[in-house]
């Protein structure tokens, strides 16, 4: 069964890059443009992994992460933060909320694969 990954970012560009990154793997990618949509998508899709931005309109990633961890049905879904913000205090605050890993933009696609691969099974699609 394909690994289901939810990309939550207000930038269509980043969501597209995340989709492209996992394209060679047996993954199903779903997307949301802010934290509120991300929570709804997490409840609906039950992803194996969430890749989450911090600064977003409507609901930011830190608020979404907090709500996710308060929800018994969703709190075990692992989250990788993918954000342009790497300040010490910021990272510590987010780490306390229970994030599994942290990747700072700008990033290489291989870095995202490496971090995701430590959390979920990434199986290469067979080449035709």
């Amino acid at each position: 069964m394909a690994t289901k990954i939810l990309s939550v970012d207000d930038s269509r560009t980043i969501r597209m890059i995340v989709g492209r990154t996992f394209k060679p793997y047996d993954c199903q990618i779903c997307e949301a443009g802010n934290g509120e949509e991300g929570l709804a998508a997490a409840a609906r899709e039950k992803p194996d992994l969430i890749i989450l931005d911090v600064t977003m309109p409507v609901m930011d990633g830190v608020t979404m992460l907090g709500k996710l961890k308060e929800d018994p049905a969703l709190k075990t879904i692992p989250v990788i933060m993918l954000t342009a913000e790497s300040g010490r205090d910021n990272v510590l605050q987010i780490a306390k909320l229970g994030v599994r890993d942290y990747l700072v933009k700008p990033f290489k696609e291989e870095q995202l694969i490496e971090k995701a691969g430590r959390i979920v099974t990434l199986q290469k699609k067979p080449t035709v």
Partner: protein
Amino acid sequence: MSQTIQLPDICEFMTRHLVDVFDTMLAMPAALTPKAGLPHFEERVTGSVGFAGDSVTGAVYLHLSATFANRVAAAMLGLPPEETIGENDVNDVVGEATNMLTGGLKSWLCDAGAGCAVSTPAIIRGAFSVEAMPDVAREFLVFESGTERVIVEIHIKLN
């Protein structure tokens, strides 16, 4: 201006960071040209992200010519350089690049003791100049990327 945070240090950080963003996300070189004059773009695409905290406020602007903005968007989206990209996609790429630049500056400022929050990106298109308020420091960093120019404009007020 704060005694611990100085504009030259900010400029040095932003120079390294712009080069990193261009190299990592676009596979494009960028080099600071300290003595370059400011280019006049007839049509430009500018990304802007603001930041604000108790002891610091400001904004970062990333100015690109319209033609180079299209090439930058193609590079980030993994498309051929000559491909014409839709305006919304170019806006999103330039906004995201500006977000990465400003997010790095925010982190640098936070680690230096000037905690702040950043806005979501905005895009301005056209031929225009941005004016700074009288008590706001302003710096231009001009880069060359191949035959194109990239300008990072920083407005900052440290209390």
